[in-house]
């Protein structure tokens, strides 16, 4: 028997038909900072993805529960051994330049183009033995061994499908068509006025009947955070994507009439904040000290005060928004007495520790100050270090720190976003994105490896639960908050955030109530 995972296209259509969408209108949305390029196959940073995620498409989209939904693929099947992924593509798809789209484009994108240009996808593609197109509407991915998170690798930012007829045999990075991107998405590239805006217009030939609803979208470039807030207040822009203005302005604007907000749309990235604690030397090398840090911190206070109530206290290495999360782990609620007892037990001698804040503005500075106070209350001597972005990169990647703030994306699966911080093979100087704290646990390394290539969901859950329980007990890092960056929008805008990457690919379904 084969798992027929879904053909939920009809279901999706039925739920969204509950409200009568209105055609037409123009949407102004802030993009911050200005993207370096709109060619999503070459550049995948946040701003590029927000604009180009509407020009290019992936085979799948993911809803806010991270469940796969149809996009360029109408339906798909995964063989029982987890080795063969078969995608049936939508009919009548054409590129923005009028050329027909076919399975050959998918094979070219995944097997040739992205293998060369997309570092993050390459990790998943390493498990792929072959990609073939038996006919124009079918693509088959054959894996060499089962890779659990593979089904999460098909959204537009991870595997954008690019036109073969434009890129085959060319120098991808210098192809002159990069300036006028051609995709299959609901919106077409119209104009880019550098420093001002990027203008997209509706794709009349889009394969989904009636979509998109909007006539045109303007991605507005406004360099100053306060000006962005003002532009929203005056109605010049309709949407402020998460992270485009400061937290206190978010809280202030949310109280105004006609302003709606949502914390959804970050499930795929699930930014997870924590402090690296240097496991190699100093007091932080002792697990009891690290546990004391966990107990000493009042993370709810920080969430309520510094983050204006946005976010959730992190229980461990995996975000509650990511697959295979468990809350069945050691509970590190604020408990200064326990922290003091642990410090007594290890015989902490008052050696000062340095805390390195993330140089991303006032919020993070306040956070470091709050942590410093919390730690001093239980008797830990703390100095706040300071560094700009370059200095922070240097200090963390050269391991010159005691405690250092950071946050990382989870990419929907522990094997993609989480494992890299805790496995021994990821201990390497020079990168601030790997196992910077220097945690070594060979037994868990084996479990991480096993979980990545296990296909059965229950089996994976069991392994990840064990991993989380042990790692939380060891506290190699100090988990802080699951960050939340609310998206603010004018209440007349409907169905803005419907996917796990929110406004990065959601405007297909968005409409404006007139």
């Amino acid at each position, binding site marked *: 028997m084969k798992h027929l995972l879904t053909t939920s296209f009809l279901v999706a259509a039925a739920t969204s038909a509950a409200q009568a969408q209105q055609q037409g209108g123009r949407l102004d949305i802030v993009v911050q900072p200005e993207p370096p390029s709109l060619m999503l196959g070459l550049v995948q940073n946040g701003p590029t993805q927000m604009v180009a995620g509407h020009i290019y498409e992936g085979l799948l989209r993911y809803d806010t529960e991270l469940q796969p939904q149809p996009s360029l693929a109408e339906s798909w099947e995964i063989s029982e051994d987890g080795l063969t992924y078969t995608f049936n593509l939508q009919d009548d798809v054409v590129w923005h330049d009028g050329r027909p789209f076919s399975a050959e484009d998918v094979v070219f994108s995944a097997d040739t183009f992205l293998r060369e240009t997309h570092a993050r996808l390459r990790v998943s593609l390493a498990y792929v033995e072959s990609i073939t197109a038996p006919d124009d509407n079918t693509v088959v991915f054959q894996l060499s061994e089962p890779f659990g998170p593979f089904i999460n690798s098909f959204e537009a930012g991870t595997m954008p499908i690019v036109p073969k007829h434009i890129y085959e045999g060319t120098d991808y990075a210098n192809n002159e068509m990069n300036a006028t991107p051609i995709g299959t998405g609901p919106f077409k590239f119209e104009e880019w006025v550098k420093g001002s805006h990027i203008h997209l217009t509706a794709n009349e030939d889009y394969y989904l009947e009636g979509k998109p609803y909007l006539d045109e979208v303007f991605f507005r470039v406004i360099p100053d955070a306060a000006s962005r807030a003002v532009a929203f207040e005056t109605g010049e822009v309709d949407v402020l994507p998460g992270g485009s203005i*400061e937290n*206190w302005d978010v809280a*202030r604007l949310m109280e105004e009439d006609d302003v709606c907000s949502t914390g959804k749309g970050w499930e795929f990235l699930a930014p997870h904040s924590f402090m690296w604690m240097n496991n190699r030397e100093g007091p932080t090398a002792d697990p009891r000290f690290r546990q004391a840090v966990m107990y000493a911190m009042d993370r709810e*206070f920080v969430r309520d*005060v*510094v983050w204006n109530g946005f976010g959730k206290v992190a229980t461990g290495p995996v975000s509650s928004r990511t697959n295979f999360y468990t809350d069945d782990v050691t509970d590190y609620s604020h408990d200064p007495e326990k922290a003091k007892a642990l410090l007594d037990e290890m015989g902490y001698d008052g050696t000062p520790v340095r805390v390195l*804040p993330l140089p991303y503005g*006032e919020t993070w*500075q*306040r956070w*470091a*100050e*709050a942590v*410093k*106070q919390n730690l001093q209350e239980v008797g830990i001597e703390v*100095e*706040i*270090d*300071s*560094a*700009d972005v370059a*200095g922070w990169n240097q200090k963390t990647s050269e391991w010159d720190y005691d405690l250092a703030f950071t946050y990382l994306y989870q990419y929907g699966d522990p094997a993609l976003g989480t494992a890299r911080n805790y496995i021994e093979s990821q201990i390497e100087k020079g990168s601030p994105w790997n196992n910077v704290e220097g945690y070594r646990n060979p037994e868990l390394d084996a479990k991480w490896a096993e979980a990545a290539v296990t296909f059965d969901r229950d089996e994976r859950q069991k392994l990840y639960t064990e991993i989380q329980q042990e790692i939380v007990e060891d506290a190699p890092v100090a988990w802080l908050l699951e960050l939340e960056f609310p998206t603010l929008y004018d209440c007349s805008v409907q169905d803005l955030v419907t996917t796990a990457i929110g406004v990065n690919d959601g405007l297909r379904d968005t409409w404006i109530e007139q």
Partner: protein
Amino acid sequence: MSDFWIRFSRNKGALLGIAMLAAVILVALVAPLMFPKGPWQMVQRPFLTPFATEGLPLGTDTLGRNVAAGLAYGARVSLLVGLVSTLVALAIGVPLGAVAGYYGGWVDEAAMRFTEFFQTIPNFALAIVLVAIMEPTLTSITLAIAIVSWPPVARLVRAEVLSLKKREFVDAAQLAGLSNRRILLAQILPNAMSPIIVMASLMVATAILLESSLAFLGLGDPNIMSWGYMIGAARTVIRSAWWLSFFPGLAIVITVLALNLIGEGLNDAMNPHLNRKGRA
């Protein structure tokens, strides 16, 4: 000396300045007694308005820290940085200017070109660069301020020395066989003291402003509460919590104004022959 005080006290502004500065110094001295837990302690709910809660006359900041405690400890930092950086600047500028002015020739040329090298770079820009390179600590900030403040001192002292060395008492000292060093240290410099003192009092004020500006931009020592830091941290919430930037701003204004008034009073008292407008 009593003449000096009489002349000084004739200037009402200068007396007011002394009173204000004395108040600031007093607050700085008793800060640890008034707020033994220090300025970083989170004592109450955040964003309490001033004059509303007992024991928190100036309210609380974004993390629930006592604004009054921050001001008191900030006074220590401002005064310390102002004073020390001025002393360091004098220690660089006075000898350099004196030597340049007295010996003249290539010594003068070299010293002045060196001074101009610093003068051509805008003060504040240079201070930012220095602090950024050295990493912001109390020492590096003080040093950076001193390094950008000494060139005017050197030029002033050089000019004073140039005019003084042509006076008859210097000729007399030379005839009496005094060494150049003795003449410079014992005869010329004491006579150049009054403009230096006046300038120094104004430099303290400038240094306090510089330190506040650096801290405002996030280039303060992150472990030290200062007025500039308080304003910088409050800038972002200025629309909802005015008092967080208002009180430290007021403290800076008062201190800098006091130092300026004192400087002017000193100027009047030490140069009685300079009859300034409207004064007999």
